């Protein structure tokens, strides 16, 4: 097995990974960085993020407002010290991106423009048309070319970490083009592999969002925190689940049911006027909007289409000029994938899984409990999203904490003692034979069969609204599926060179374990909070018993062992989470 000697390995080339790599390179150009990604970096799912990235900039805004919105949005499950750090560093990262060339949308005077986003009291979402993630990612990727110390390994599939003497000493990856394994001997590793949306069938996520990094950390004893909190984005296209950005609502779009009625007013988000108005109606938080859809569907007030039940996202009153300027990609997406021109017709939408609030446990400095392992971005649970993420906090998160991870990993790598290459190599070889073993099975399910059954179990048992018996059924089904997976999947493709069926089998292994973590974490949180809402006896938030984080530890072939950890409260004691109500109509910029 070929070996690469490096200092810091970054796994994942999306916004967080690129920002981390640049931070290492800027901090000390003598440190060698290996950026490993299973896709060429600009294909990473950051590219699909649309709406924008939060950063306090207006005179009538403040860090306290951003803090309050985030903590309230997270239903008080956020670690408030980390949120304080986060809100204080968003704006400088947005400015740094601008210096690197990011084409943020401007006001007529040439200054940065910001828009409203769900759950936010003041406009603070920086945006680049409705392709903010695309522009941020391309800016970071193109900027990274200036740093020769960053060596990229594009289309290398990270298969495992090598942990020796209780710390990370290597990463094993598969060179996808050849199917050969490569060992990266390193002092520190940063996991930036994104979320786990592909645990569910209906999702806005790319095919690559399979939670590989979470699965790898989990297998090395690092707990996954708050995995029961999966976010359903309220406005995705039926069928494909393709995202229709919250920015539409930030620009004033409304949601109506089959009677043309703005139904959100029935769910504590009203009154409807004045509109637009922050933190009310369609600018409420995502969990409340997705839950409202579910209720409307139960009441039979949603619209039937061949692709499922939908409601209407109506942009018509915004006018062609504004739609063309602010929402050009959405227009294209709606026309191409839904056959609808938003200037003249409303867009059919329904909730789809979009974001993983939980992830790899780490502290506010992105350090995981495993020495030498850092994590940033959607795959991490650094503590800012709590039980529900506000839109535009995630694009900010990847650069704020990507930078922290890079700096911390670099600091650690410089001080870390020499490794044990022989022991590391032996471990790497056993990873190789374990994974090559997946190629040889002559009997077993197809990848798609197990994957579809997992989707069915999760959609039915661990959906937007949850009940104990359905969750239990999902847990049981996942145990069965994990067992079938262990007994072997039968692959059609026995090649080494560019074998994507083999890789999707490896990914499925991770996704199944994550599904199990989600289902068990959900079953055992006996309250409703944020995106985890139950219809059984635990319909209310229970701060007395559950103002705590869920930690899931791997036990091997069995279900996870769950533990709990306290939430850090500093400035904002838990209050009831209120949206809607009175307010003044705002001027959208």
């Amino acid at each position, binding site marked *: 097995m070929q070996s690469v000697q490096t200092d810091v390995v970054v796994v994942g080339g999306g916004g967080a990974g690129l920002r981390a790599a640049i931070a290492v390179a800027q901090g000390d150009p003598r440190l060698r960085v290996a950026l490993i990604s299973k*896709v*060429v970096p*600009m*294909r*990473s*799912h950051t*590219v*699909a993020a649309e709406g924008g990235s939060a950063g306090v900039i207006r005179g009538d805004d403040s860090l306290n407002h951003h803090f309050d919105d985030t903590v309230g949005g997270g239903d008080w499950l956020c670690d408030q010290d980390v949120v304080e750090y986060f809100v204080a560093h968003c704006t*400088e990262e947005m*400015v*740094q991106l*601008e*210096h*690197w*060339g990011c*084409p*943020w949308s*401007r006001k*007529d*005077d*040439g*200054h*940065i423009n910001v828009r409203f986003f769900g759950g936010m009291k003041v406009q603070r979402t920086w945006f680049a048309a409705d*392709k903010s993630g*695309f*522009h941020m990612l*391309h800016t970071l990727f*193109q*900027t990274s*070319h*200036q740093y020769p110390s960053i060596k990229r390994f*594009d289309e290398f599939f990270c298969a495992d970490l090598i942990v020796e003497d209780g710390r990370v000493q290597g990463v094993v990856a598969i060179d996808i*083009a050849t199917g050969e394994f490569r060992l990266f001997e390193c002092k520190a590793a940063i996991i930036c592999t994104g979320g786990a949306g592909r645990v569910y069938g209906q999702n806005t996520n*790319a*095919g*690559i969002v399979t939670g590989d990094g979470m699965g790898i950390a989990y297998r090395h004893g690092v707990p996954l925190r708050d995995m029961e909190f999966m976010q359903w984005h309220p406005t995705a296209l039926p*069928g*494909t689940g*393709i*995202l229709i950005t919250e920015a539409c609502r930030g620009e004033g779009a409304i949601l109506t049911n089959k009677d043309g009625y703005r139904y959100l007013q029935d769910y504590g988000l009203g009154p409807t006027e004045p509109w637009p108005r922050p933190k009310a109606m369609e600018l409420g938080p995502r969990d409340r909007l997705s839950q409202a859809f579910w209720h409307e569907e139960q009441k039979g007030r949603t619209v039937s289409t*061949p*692709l499922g039940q939908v409601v209407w996202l109506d942009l018509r009153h915004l006018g062609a000029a504004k739609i063309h300027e602010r929402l050009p*990609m959405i227009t*294209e*997406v709606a026309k*191409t*994938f839904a*056959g609808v021109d938003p200037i003249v017709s409303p867009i059919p939408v329904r909730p789809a899984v979009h974001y993983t609030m939980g992830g790899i446990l780490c502290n506010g400095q992105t350090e995981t409990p495993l020495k030498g392992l850092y994590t940033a971005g959607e795959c991490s649970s650094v503590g800012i999203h709590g039980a529900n993420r506000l839109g535009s906090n995630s694009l900010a998160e990847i650069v704020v904490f990507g930078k922290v991870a890079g700096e911390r990993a670099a600091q650690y790598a410089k001080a870390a003692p020499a490794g044990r290459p022989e022991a590391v190599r032996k471990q790497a070889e056993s990873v190789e034979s374990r994974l090559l073993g997946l190629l040889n099975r002559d009997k077993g399910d*197809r*990848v*798609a069969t197990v994957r579809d059954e997992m989707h069915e179990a999760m959609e039915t048992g661990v959906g937007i609204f949850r009940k104990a018996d359905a969750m239990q059924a999902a847990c049981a089904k996942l145990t069965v599926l994990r067992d079938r997976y262990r007994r072997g999947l039968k*692959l*059609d*493709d026995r*090649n080494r*060179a*560019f*074998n*994507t*069926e083999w890789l999707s089998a490896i990914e499925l292994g991770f996704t199944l374990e994550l599904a199990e973590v989600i289902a068990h974490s959900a079953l055992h949180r006996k309250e409703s909070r944020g995106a985890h809402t139950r219809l059984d006896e635990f319909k209310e938030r229970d701060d007395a018993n559950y103002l705590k984080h869920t930690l899931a530890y791997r036990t091997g072939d069995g279900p996870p062992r769950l533990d709990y950890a306290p939430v850090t409260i500093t400035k904002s004691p838990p209050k009831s989470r209120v949206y809607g109500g009175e307010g003044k109509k705002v001027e959208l910029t």
Partner: protein
Amino acid sequence: MADTRTIEIEVLRYNPEKDAEPHFQTFQVPFTHDTSVLQGLQYIKDHLDGSLTFRWSCRMAICGSCGKMVNGVPQLSCHTFLRDYYPGTVRIEPLNHFPVVRDLVIDQSDFFEKKLPSVKPYIVPKNAKPVSAGAHVQTPAQFQKYYQYSQCINCLLCYAACPQYGLKPEFTGPAALALLHRYNADSRDRGWEERAEILNSEEGVWGCTLVGYCSEVCPKQVDPAHAINQNKVNSTLDYFGVLKFLMPKGGA
């Protein structure tokens, strides 16, 4: 489903471990009104032949992974629909002008390892200032000068369209040159001198004979043909030593 029909998909297969040459294989694929070519390929992989290999990711024409030749035309397979080819056969091949690695997967390394880095695709700051000084001011007029060219998703359809790239792979090519122009045209940048050697060379704008097919196939209307060919004037002015009086320099 009520309106499910079947279409014939013919795919190029090539296994470097077994084949001397590529060959075609045909599959019968069920589809409905909104089934994309990509979904057709996924159906084949999931249910008929798991060894069929192709790149894809976002499914919404923003990541640039899924470019293929569909009936001889470079397309993003995620937003090309089977209904538009029925009842004919859909012939799917890897993007032209790139070596084939396996089935529909091309070797992209020439673009990502050579052409893209060669154009210095990053801001060379005109006014170096610290982050604490805040964002630059950039008026809508300044913004418009480069924004269109920043829309490139690196899908490489333009390279598959460009016969010059196919005939002479040293040509820097449409997307890379459009990106070069994007940075030259950004009011915050003054790196045009550093990019001039590439721009002015035979492999730069002068390798383009304005076939124009690149701009036809671009899914994001970047118009690389325009980016390249408007720079032929600039390149000429530079040759005569005149351009430097017209272009921005560092400083306020």
